[in-house]
């Protein structure tokens, strides 16, 4: 079932057009990777999906309903957003940090149900023992998992992630990517993530959206969208696709 539909979305920062007629859709349980060079509109697209930015024209639909017709709280219950990084880290406990994600459901004070949900998602991302540690004391991989838990605790139908693996070492990159894939499958979520790592996109996505200058340049299954030609056209870099390893490798000879 198609859950998320992005229809001809345009957005600009002042006179700079950041998104030009972006259109795609995603089914429940699908992982969609958005790739493209810096400034191609990946983060802007995620923020527009989440309703943080309002599109100038076009619309984002969830289950056939336009975001424009929803209140902020309603949108907040549908989407879990994992930012690229936090602007500022006060030493909250992991528990309180994740609990803050329940905000759309909490009018005045969090109750027993909210606490249970927090432990549930902490278990899911394997951070139970760290519940009362400070987030400032977590490793990069743990912090990323805490951020994902924070996004999941609202029980969203769509999970948005901005560069979830950017600050992680190899081991945690795979761990987080596996976790995301498994969440999409088990919880029937639509996952939309912006990625720099083309191999991860190739390996873990059901659909890849390749962006260039605010437009969708190519789209489809990883094999269809991530070809050597597309990548050269978008990044200006020659690569080899290793089909067996499901990897995208930068070619040694760039001529």
């Amino acid at each position, binding site marked *: 079932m198609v859950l998320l539909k992005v229809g001809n979305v345009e957005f600009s920062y002042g006179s700079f057009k950041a998104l030009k007629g972006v259109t795609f859709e995603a089914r429940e349980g699908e992982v969609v990777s958005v790739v493209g060079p810096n400034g191609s509109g990946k983060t802007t697209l995620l923020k527009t999906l989440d309703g*943080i930015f309002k599109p100038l024209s076009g619309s984002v639909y969830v289950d056939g309903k336009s975001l424009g017709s929803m209140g902020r709280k309603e949108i907040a*219950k549908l989407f879990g*957003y994992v930012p690229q990084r936090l*602007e*500022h880290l*006060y030493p909250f*406990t992991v528990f309180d940090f994740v609990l803050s994600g329940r905000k759309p459901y909490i009018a005045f*004070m*969090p109750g027993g149900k909210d606490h249970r949900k927090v432990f549930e998602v902490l278990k899911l991302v394997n951070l139970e023992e760290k519940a009362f540690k400070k987030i*400032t004391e977590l490793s990069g991989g743990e912090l990323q998992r805490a951020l994902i838990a924070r996004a999941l605790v609202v029980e969203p139908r769509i999970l948005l992630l901005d560069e979830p693996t950017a600050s992680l070492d190899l081991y945690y990159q795979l761990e987080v990517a596996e976790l995301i894939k498994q969440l999409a499958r088990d919880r029937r979520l639509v996952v939309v993530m912006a990625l720099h790592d083309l191999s991860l996109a190739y390996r873990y996505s059901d659909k890849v959206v390749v962006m260039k200058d605010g437009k969708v340049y190519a789209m489809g299954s990883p094999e269809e969208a991530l070809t050597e030609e597309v990548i050269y056209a978008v990044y200006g870099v020659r690569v080899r696709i290793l089909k067996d390893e499901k990897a995208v490798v930068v070619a040694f000879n760039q001529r």
Partner: protein
Amino acid sequence: MSNALRINVIYLLLLTAVFAFFLASLSFGGFYKVSLTDLINVMGSRGMLEDPLRVVIDMRLRRGLTSIAVGAILGVSSIALQNVLRNPLASPFTLGIQHAAALGVGVAMTAFGAISIIGPRSATSSTVVMVNPYVVSALAFAGATIQSFLILFLAYSVGLSIYAVILASIALSFASQAALSLLQYLYFNEVQVATLLFWTFGDVGRVSWFDVWLLLLIASAATILFTALSMDLDLISLGDEVAVSSGVNVKVVRFVALLTSSLFTAVSVSLVGVIGFAGLLASHAARLTVGWNTRRSVFAATLYGSLIVLAADFLGRVVLNPVTLPVGITTTLVGVPLLIALLLGGRRGVAEGR
């Protein structure tokens, strides 16, 4: 959940300490010692207002309750400011909001004759009477609000770092103080100068019962408001976009928090003067002991603030008895080392990010 138990024990200890200092400040400090039985007798009996003991108790009750209220106001305002500005060094004092409010009071004294002095013509024994308390509070509020939004502008539109914001605020507070000095130099007579000086030291001993109730009311309102907003404040401290994506109306919450903490600070300054560092001290004591969860730290900061101002006032009355030190001097002497420690510790501790 031993964590919850630990926090409840901390609340209980704090409440006990506040109560103990409150009783102590009723009994000691100054010429009269009041025993507990005296206290119960006088409180229980009606009439006999001319009883000197009753007068002493009445005065000290006002002092104690004012300390509790003002400490709470400054403590919770500091927490709110630290979250909406994402600056762990923020407080009504370090951001110069109290100084700006003091300048407002100076302007009220000069331009509107809103404060006059009654009693013997000497600064220590005379009483400051507000001819028009609304003008004083309104101008204090105007000064505080202008300063708050100037800081917001510096932090967000200019994009200064947390340290630069504090430095800019300190610079601005020098400007406020210089303007106040200029007013004194040009327009004040010597008694007014002395009165204003005493008042800028911060003194909880000169308020009427009406003011006491007003301060207590504001302290309760501030605690309730920031408790109600605690989750929004938690989220704003993580970043505007994170907060928006969790359904918080960031602009409204930030505006409300800045405006109300300016108002609360302005009222406290117009009644008791500038009490430096009490808010910063209270907020960090709260963060250290109950953590950074806003709901818990607001409540703890209320108690720590009350405790700090009560204790500072008590010490100020006991140490050089019978001379009474203004409470603002005591809190500042304790607060300066803390600010320096925070600035140094910021390199690896609370103030990272941004």
